[in-house]
C-alpha cells in the first residue's frame, strides 16, 4: 500500500489565490520525501490537507488508504506531526508533556513513561526532563516536539521545518534519527523544508514546489534528468587549448559539462598535451539547489512566453 497518494490536490483559502494547485504525487512506505520550497509555497497547506486539518477545494488525498478529510482521527492515530504552530504545555515538564501526549494516543501511563524516557535520551534531553517547558531553548523545544511526534511510533511522520532553530550538531543528530527511522523501522517521512542542502542529505525522493505549484517529483537522479544528467567538471589550469568548449569562470578555473566520467581523462590529457599544467579537477553532478533554481527559472520563462 502506498503511504501517501495525492491526486490533483488543490486548496483555495476563501477566495484568495491557490495555496496548492493541482498537486499529484505518491509516496511509498519507508520513503523520506522532501517537500521543498520557499516560505509560503504551500508546504504547510499540504501537511494540513494530508492530516485533515483542512479539506481540499479540489482533488483528493489518502494516507495509508485513509481519506483524511472524512476520518482525520484515523490518520492522526498513525501519524506524528511536527509543525511550528504545534507547541506543548509550558506549565508541564518535558517528561510530563510526553507522558500526557502518550496517554492522549491511548498508550497506558507506564508504557508512555518508558517511551518518553527512551526518546528523551535519544534526543539528548534527559538532563532537562524534569524542567518546565518554559525554560527550554528553541532547539530543545524542537527536539521535544520530535519526541512527542514519535511517542506512539507512527507509521508516517510529517515534519515541517524540523531543524529550524537547531544548532548544527543537533540538526545532524535529528538527520541521523530520521534516516534511522526510515531504514530500520520503515517509517515514512514527509519532510517540508526550504533548506535544500539539508534535504539532499536526508531524503530519498523529492517534490519541488513554488507558489502552490508542484514543479517536479522524483528521486535526485530523476530530477537531474529533467535538467542535465551529466557532470559539471571544474578544472584549474594555466592553459586551456582551443577546440574544447570551456567556460572560463574565475582566475585559472574553467568549467565544462560532460555526460560520463570517462570523458574527463581525455580532456585533462589534451590540456597537458597542449603544454598546460593541471592543478585541480573537480567533477560534480547537479545539486538539488541547482536543479531547484533551474526549474524555477524554466517556470518563469514559460510564464513569460504565455
Amino acid at each position, binding site marked *: 500500500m502506498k503511504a501517501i497518494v495525492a491526486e490533483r490536490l488543490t486548496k483555495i483559502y476563501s477566495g484568495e489565490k491557490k495555496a496548492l494547485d493541482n498537486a499529484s504525487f505518491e509516496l511509498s512506505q519507508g520513503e523520506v520525501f522532501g517537500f521543498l520550497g520557499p516560505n509560503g509555497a504551500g508546504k504547510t497547506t499540504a501537511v494540513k490537507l494530508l492530516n485533515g*486539518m483542512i*479539506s481540499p477545494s479540489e482533488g483528493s488525498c489518502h494516507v495509508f488508504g485513509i481519506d483524511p478529510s472524512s476520518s482525520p482521527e*484515523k490518520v492522526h492515530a498513525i501519524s506524528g506531526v511536527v509543525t511550528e504552530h504545534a507547541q506543548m504545555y509550558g506549565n508541564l515538564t518535558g517528561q510530563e508533556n510526553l507522558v500526557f501526549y502518550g496517554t*492522549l494516543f491511548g498508550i497506558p501511563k507506564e508504557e508512555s513513561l518508558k517511551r518518553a524516557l527512551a526518546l528523551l535520551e535519544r534526543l539528548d534531553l534527559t538532563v532537562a526532563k524534569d524542567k518546565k517547558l518554559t525554560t527550554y531553548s528553541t532547539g530543545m523545544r524542537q527536539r521535544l516536539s520530535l519526541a512527542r511526534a514519535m511517542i506512539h511510533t507512527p507509521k508516517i511522520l510529517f515534519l515541517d521545518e524540523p531543524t529550524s532553530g537547531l544548532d548544527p550538531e543537533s540538526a545532524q543528530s535529528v538527520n541521523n534519527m530520521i534516516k534511522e527511522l526510515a531504514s530500520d523501522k520503515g517509517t515514512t517521512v514527509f519532510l517540508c523544508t526550504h533548506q535544500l542542502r539539508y534535504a539532499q542529505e536526508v531524503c530519498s525522493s523529492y517534490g519541488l514546489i513554488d507558489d502552490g505549484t508542484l514543479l517536479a517529483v522524483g528521486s535526485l537522479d530523476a530530477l537531474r534528468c529533467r535538467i542535465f544528467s551529466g557532470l559539471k567538471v571544474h578544472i584549474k589550469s594555466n592553459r586551456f587549448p582551443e577546440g574544447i568548449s570551456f567556460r572560463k569562470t574565475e582566475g585559472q578555473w574553467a568549467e565544462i559539462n560532460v555526460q560520463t566520467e570517462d570523458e574527463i581523462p581525455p580532456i585533462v590529457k589534451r590540456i597537458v598535451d597542449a603544454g598546460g599544467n593541471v592543478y585541480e579537477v573537480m567533477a560534480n553532478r547537479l545539486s538539488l539547489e541547482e536543479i531547484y533554481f533551474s526549474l524555477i527559472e524554466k517556470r518563469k520563462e514559460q510564464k513569460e512566453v504565455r
Partner: protein
Amino acid sequence: MNTMQSALIKKDLRGITANKQLLVAMISVPIVLTVVVPSIFIMLIHFMPNDFSDFDAMLRMLPIDIQLDNMNTAIISLLLNNIMPVFFIIIPIMAASIMAASSFVGEKEKRTLETLLYCPLSLKQIFRAKILSSFIMSELVSILSFTIMTLVTQIEIFLTTGSLLLPNISWLVVLLLLSPAVSLIAITLIVRGSARAQTMEESQQRSALLVLPVIFLVAGQFMGIILINIWILLGLGALLALIAWILMNGSFQKISYESMLR
C-alpha cells in the same frame, strides 16, 4: 468517556489548579459572596437589633407560610434561602467562564490547540472532554462554596440564635439543576466565541458581555421566583437545562478544524 478523554480532562483541571492567578480569582470571589457577605449580615442582625422597621415592612410582604415568629430568624431565613441562591447562579457562570476561556482560547493562544487536534480523538470528543472539564470545575467551585457557606453560616447562626436554620428544599433544585444548567450555557457561549477570540482576555470579556444580561435578568427576578413556588423553580431549571442542551448540540454542528485554527 475513554481514557484519552479523561487524560485531557485531568490535564485541563491540573492546568487551572497550577495557575495561581486563575485559581485565586476563581476561589476568592465565591468565598466573598457566600461566606463574607452572609457573615456580615448575620453579625449585623445580631449586634444591631434595634431598628427593624424596614425589615419588618419587607417581611410582611412575604407569603404567610414563610413568615416566622422570631424576627431575627425570619431575616436570616430570607437571607439564606432566598437571597443566597442567587449567588449560586453567578458563581458557576464565573467559574465556568474562567475555566472554559483558559481551556479553549488559552490553548489557541499558547499554540497548543493544534498539537491537541493532531491526536486521534475526534473534534467532538475533544470538545466534550473540554466542556466536561469546565463543567466539573464549575460544579466543584459551586459545591465547595455551598459546603463552606453552610458550615460557616450554621455555626454563626447557632452562636447568635442558639439554634440551627438548615437550607430548605429550593437549594436542592438550585444546586442540582439550575446552577449546572447555567454553567453549561456559559461554557457553550465561550466555546462558540472561542473560534473568533484570539486571546484569553478577549474571550473572558466576550463572555462577560454575554453573561451580564443573564445576571441582571435572572438574578434580579430570581428571588421572587424562589418565593413563589418550588415547581416554578423546577420548571425554570428544566428550561435552562434544555437551552443548554440545544446550545451545546448546536455548537457541535458548527465546529471544524479549520474554524478552530483560524
